[in-house]
């Protein structure tokens, strides 16, 4: 049954953390291949006759990626230097704007407010996700079989819940009139929750979004953390115990160093995912009230679709992508290091 949760952790979403957990060369859930004696360098990478074949095999993937991903990215960049409003949209003429979209944005206090809000939102979410997620991972490792199964199933269920469905449920949980959140507050004896509006301000809305995102993201971290912990050999723990280490010392001396790549990679992944989260924020309250809960992706969407400032929206999107790329470069450095070690 432990395979159950481990498999989830390693197979869905990302295989990077699974690899971070220590086994080299082994793909996500291939627990069987551990017995295979590993030749020193890259089993399965052996050179086979080359020629045109690899390129033919790769062509469909490369072409579709170029058309539907690369081209839009380039087009996005071009668009950010154009003036595209309601009029240009209808007449379909190209009006170049130079850097106007960027200068407008960078001198606009609203943009800065959204940017700062996005960063704070991301920071708060990632700290909570990594902190609580890791603790739950450690707890999973210490539980007995039955309780571990119970908690794993609960985590997997929360993880599998489609985002749009969970947003809808959270709106219902925090409904002004009949939501259970208000009832819980009343039952706990807190006053002022007769008909409390949980989405009254942008801050309040983003708090609920944070609860949602943290709830939905912890399972990934916790299950991967647990999967990582199980790869640490018992000998290490025993050695630590024989040396008289306390639980806390064992954690810092044994667990943390082995799982450091996991921590780093997962943290960066979470930063990227939260920073570009659109559905959770938009579906919760459409960036409202008064555009006060907009994060950068939502801001770009509303500038474009709501305000018909497509050029500006493209500029926002480019700036967001630049920030993402900056974060990702750290992530890729970590991953590449891992790849080379293999």
């Amino acid at each position, binding site marked *: 049954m432990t395979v159950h949760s481990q498999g989830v952790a390693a*197979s869905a979403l990302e295989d990077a953390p699974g690899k971070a957990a220590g086994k080299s060369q082994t793909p996500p859930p291939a627990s069987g291949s551990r017995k295979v004696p590993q030749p020193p360098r890259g089993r399965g990478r052996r050179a086979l006759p080359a020629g045109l074949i690899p390129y033919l095999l790769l062509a469909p993937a*490369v072409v579709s990626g170029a058309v539907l991903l690369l081209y839009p990215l380039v087009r996005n960049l071009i668009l950010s230097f154009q003036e595209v409003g309601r009029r240009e949209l209808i007449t379909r003429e190209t009006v170049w704007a130079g850097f106007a979209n960027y200068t407008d944005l960078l001198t606009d206090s609203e943009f800065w407010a959204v940017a700062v809000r996005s960063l704070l939102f991301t920071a708060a979410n990632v700290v909570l996700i990594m902190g609580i997620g890791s603790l739950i991972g450690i707890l999973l490792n210490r539980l007995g079989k039955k309780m571990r199964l119970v908690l794993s199933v609960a985590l997997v269920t929360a993880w599998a*819940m489609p985002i749009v469905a969970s947003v809808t449920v959270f709106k219902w949980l925090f409904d002004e009139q009949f939501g259970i959140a208000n009832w819980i507050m009343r039952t706990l004896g807190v006053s002022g929750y007769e008909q409390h509006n949980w989405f009254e301000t942008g801050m309040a809305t983003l708090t609920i979004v944070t609860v949602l995102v943290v709830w939905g993201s912890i399972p990934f971290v916790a299950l991967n953390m647990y999967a990582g912990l199980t790869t640490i050999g018992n000998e290490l723990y025993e050695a630590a115990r024989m040396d008289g280490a306390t639980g806390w010392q064992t954690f810092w001396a044994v667990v943390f160093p082995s799982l450091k790549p996991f921590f780093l990679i997962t943290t960066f992944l979470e930063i990227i995912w939260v920073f570009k989260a659109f559905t959770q924020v938009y579906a919760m309250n459409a960036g409202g009230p008064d555009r006060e809960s907009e994060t950068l992706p939502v801001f770009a969407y509303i500038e474009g679709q709501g305000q018909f400032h497509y050029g500006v929206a493209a500029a926002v999107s480019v700036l967001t992508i630049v920030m993402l790329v900056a974060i*990702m470069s750290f992530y890729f450095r970590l991953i590449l290091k891992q790849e080379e070690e293999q």
Partner: protein
Amino acid sequence: MSNVSSDLRAPRRNRRPVRPSAIGKNLLALALAAVFLFPVYWMFSSSLKPQSEILSKDPVFLFTPTLGNYTKATGVDLFWTYVLNSVTVTVGAVFLALVVALAASFAIARMKFRGRKGLVLAVMMAQMAPWEVMVIVMYLIARDGDMLNSIPLLTAIYFVMVLPFTIWTLRGFIAAVPVELEEAALIDGCNRGQAFIKVVFPLLAPGLMSTSLFGFITAWNEFAMVLILNKDKEAQTLTLWLTQFQTAFGSDWGATMAASSLFALPVLVVFLFLQRRAVGGMTAGAVKG
């Protein structure tokens, strides 16, 4: 919650399981399980409640379940169109991605060629593609090409969304199949194509399943792209239907939760079913060396 946290304070310095701390751990695990399950439970339970018991100041925990909310949700105009659209884009995207990725990942895992490293990097970067912030440009591209409200375009976009991950994962699975097995098949007189189909492919089945699981979830859940591209009711998917349901039905939370449950159920089932089989298949497979 309060009684649980008091149990937590039991001393837990010693690593060996000692009774009081074991009880504390178990209670904490139970409380956490409850927290993670609650929204899902509340969704299903609300969806089965009669209207009168939904609209009550104090939540009702025991009630006679009714399917009335489900009839209401599925009775919405165009419901089956949304279902069909969602199934089409999801199955289409996943199938395309598997076929294209199988070829690509085989090349990456088993062949040496110029630009291999760059390609691996490109796949990794594409996996992180910021689709959510590309919606505006996608809208303009689709509009210029008269492809708004197009199910094929949406399928194609979802296909490219899940493609990098599919390549990445399958690459791992292919690399895990010992090259010796393939060589044995070659020695036995197979050509490379036959060796792939007869030896490698069967061993990949679990990998294909767990990979398609991810693709399925991504495509089924996608929201931003369909929101901006397919404004036409006839071309919408279940995600859009669900987010607009509540607005359309005022505060009919029973029906809204029924809609949510209908939307979430396939994913929950697929997630639990597919990943278990995928793992079971892999461990029971021939990769024993």
